[in-house]
């Protein structure tokens, strides 16, 4: 299958800080990919690199087989909705549709007007006086009506109330079902991503921690609980993500390719939210070992 987005060693540096580092990804086409991570992890940077808003400091990225923003034809194939869904506040809804029609050769005016009337937006209303949810829907309409092959959305529902959020995702999924569309969207609400995503990327502190199809991720991560055990005795191929021990009990979250055969463990499935939280807490503990710790291990 072709990759919608392919990155290799991608990195972006601002002054002295790296917003994104060593990012290597291959997101398949025709899927809805979710990008999750804490604030400041580099999600916006990765999305902007994919949309061609930024140029990489290091590494490469190709989108639908070409360099982002390489020319008008490539720009036409990628739709982008930035954080806080910016619109021209003094222009009306109808003006925005005109903007889309004038600037995009592949503009589907029928689709745009249909969506606008379905959403009950007043074409003569200034975009600045729309509610947050309406603005987001307008931005989504503009991005969808140019008939892109890939749609990139940066936290599109972050500042919306639950109803507006649900309506936005309904509209987005309806469009995905209707067109052959790949989507990459970021959110810090894992519950939303669990509903809509086939593919998940966890980005923490400017690095990709885990990426894969959601079904594979859920099948390969398990909660293990049982009597107190030294984690070193686990078989190879089982990677511990997080561990908690009391004097009598051990609770682990592990990643494994094969089944867990040891009968001493009670094995439970993991929700996507737990999975993401586990990786986040592991990244938080990533500190270089102190000399005492190193001595104890050897």
């Amino acid at each position, binding site marked *: 299958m072709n990759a919608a987005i392919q990155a290799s060693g991608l990195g972006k540096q601002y002054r002295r800080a790296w917003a994104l580092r060593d990012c290597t990804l291959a997101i398949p086409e025709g899927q809805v990919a979710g990008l999750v991570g804490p604030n400041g992890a580099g999600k916006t940077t990765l999305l902007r690199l994919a949309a061609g808003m930024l140029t990489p400091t290091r590494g490469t990225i190709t989108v639908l087989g070409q360099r982002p923003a390489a020319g008008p034809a490539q720009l036409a194939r990628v739709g982008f909705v930035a954080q806080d869904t910016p619109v021209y506040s003094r222009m009306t809804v109808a003006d925005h549709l005109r*903007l889309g029609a004038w600037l995009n050769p592949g503009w589907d005016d029928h689709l745009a007007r249909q969506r606008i009337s379905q959403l009950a937006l007043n074409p003569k209303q200034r975009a600045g006086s729309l509610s947050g949810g309406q603005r987001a829907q307008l931005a989504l309409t503009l991005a969808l009506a140019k008939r892109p092959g890939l749609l990139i959305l940066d936290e599109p529902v972050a500042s919306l109330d639950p109803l507006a959020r649900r309506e936005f995702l309904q509209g987005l999924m309806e469009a995905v079902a209707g067109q052959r569309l790949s989507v990459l969207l970021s959110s810090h609400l894992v519950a939303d991503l669990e509903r809509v995503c086939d593919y998940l990327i966890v980005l923490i502190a400017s690095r990709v921690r885990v990426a894969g199809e959601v079904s594979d991720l859920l099948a390969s991560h398990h909660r293990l609980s049982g009597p107190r055990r030294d984690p070193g005795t686990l078989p190879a191929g089982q990677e511990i993500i997080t561990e908690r021990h009391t004097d009598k009990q051990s609770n682990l979250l592990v990643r494994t390719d094969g089944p867990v055969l040891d009968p001493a463990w009670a094995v439970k499935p993991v929700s996507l939210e737990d999975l993401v939280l586990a990786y986040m807490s592991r990244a938080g503990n990533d500190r270089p070992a102190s000399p005492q710790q190193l001595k104890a291990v050897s």
Partner: protein
Amino acid sequence: MIRLSMLQLRVQAITAAVALIAFAVLLAATGPHLASLYAASGLRGCQPASCGQRANIFLQQVDSTGPYAAVYPLSIILIALTPAVTGLFWGAPLLARELETGTFALAWSQSVTRARWLAVKLTVGGLAAMAVTGALSLLFAWWAAPLGRAAGLGGSGNSLAMNQFNPLAFATHGITPLGYAAFAFTLGVTAGALIRRTVPAMAVTLAIFAALQIAMPLWIRPNLFPASHTTVAITSDTTLNLFTTDSPHTFTFTLATDGLAGQPGAWIRSSGAADAAGHPVSTVVPSACSPAASSSGPGPALANCLTSRGIRIAVTYQPASRYWPLQWTETGIYLVLSLALAGYCFRRLSRLS
């Protein structure tokens, strides 16, 4: 993209149209009467001897009757300020507002490249700014034509008959306003690109534009072409001033002129006392002329005495024929600056988000 640029300039274009129409109405209401005053003054086809006199009468008449004395300076100020206004309100927000509000993300994810987006917006906005200023100055040139002719025929000493090299006159007539408009606009766009906030960009644009508009007539324009030099005799048109000193019976004098016989409409750069060869001389009144100085003050007697001592007046000037070369050169400088700034904006474009 052209239609989008025009859509985004909608409000500004309407404001400019309203101002243009109001100005045109004002000039149309007063212009024909001014023309008829000129026709009645007999300046057309006048004998060279009487032209100066007739011109002065005409200018006096215009100055004292009707609204002309108010319309003239109002128009001058309007044309002088318009490049700054378009630079501030059309140029500065072009990039700054998009960067400030985040709408650049919407604009640059459409199917046009950033370069084309900026190129069209710069061209449409820049040409529009030049057109507005050009229209205003064209209307004014039509209206003030009689006054200009009267000044050219020797009328002087009137605020309505400015020498064409007067800084305010030079900046509001001819083609220089077009250059200023283009420059102020691209300066505004560049400031917006660097500062990324509309109001600070407007302030910086105003500061830099004002500084250049002051520096140009003071230091740059006078040195664009080598000046001509000549030495003439002291005449009744020469300004002769006398000053007392600490020592009794010793006086100093200064000589100046604001016109040159045989060079109507010339730009007098400087003038001063000199000998026949043009070298500056001492400005202490020679002792032989002291009686003339002390008794009658700076009068014809003193002038004759100085002349008999071989003292003349040296004048540094640009002849009237230099007017259009200066206009073209100055406009060219501003246009080159505009293009350089525009080029810089394109180079910075890829680093903007």
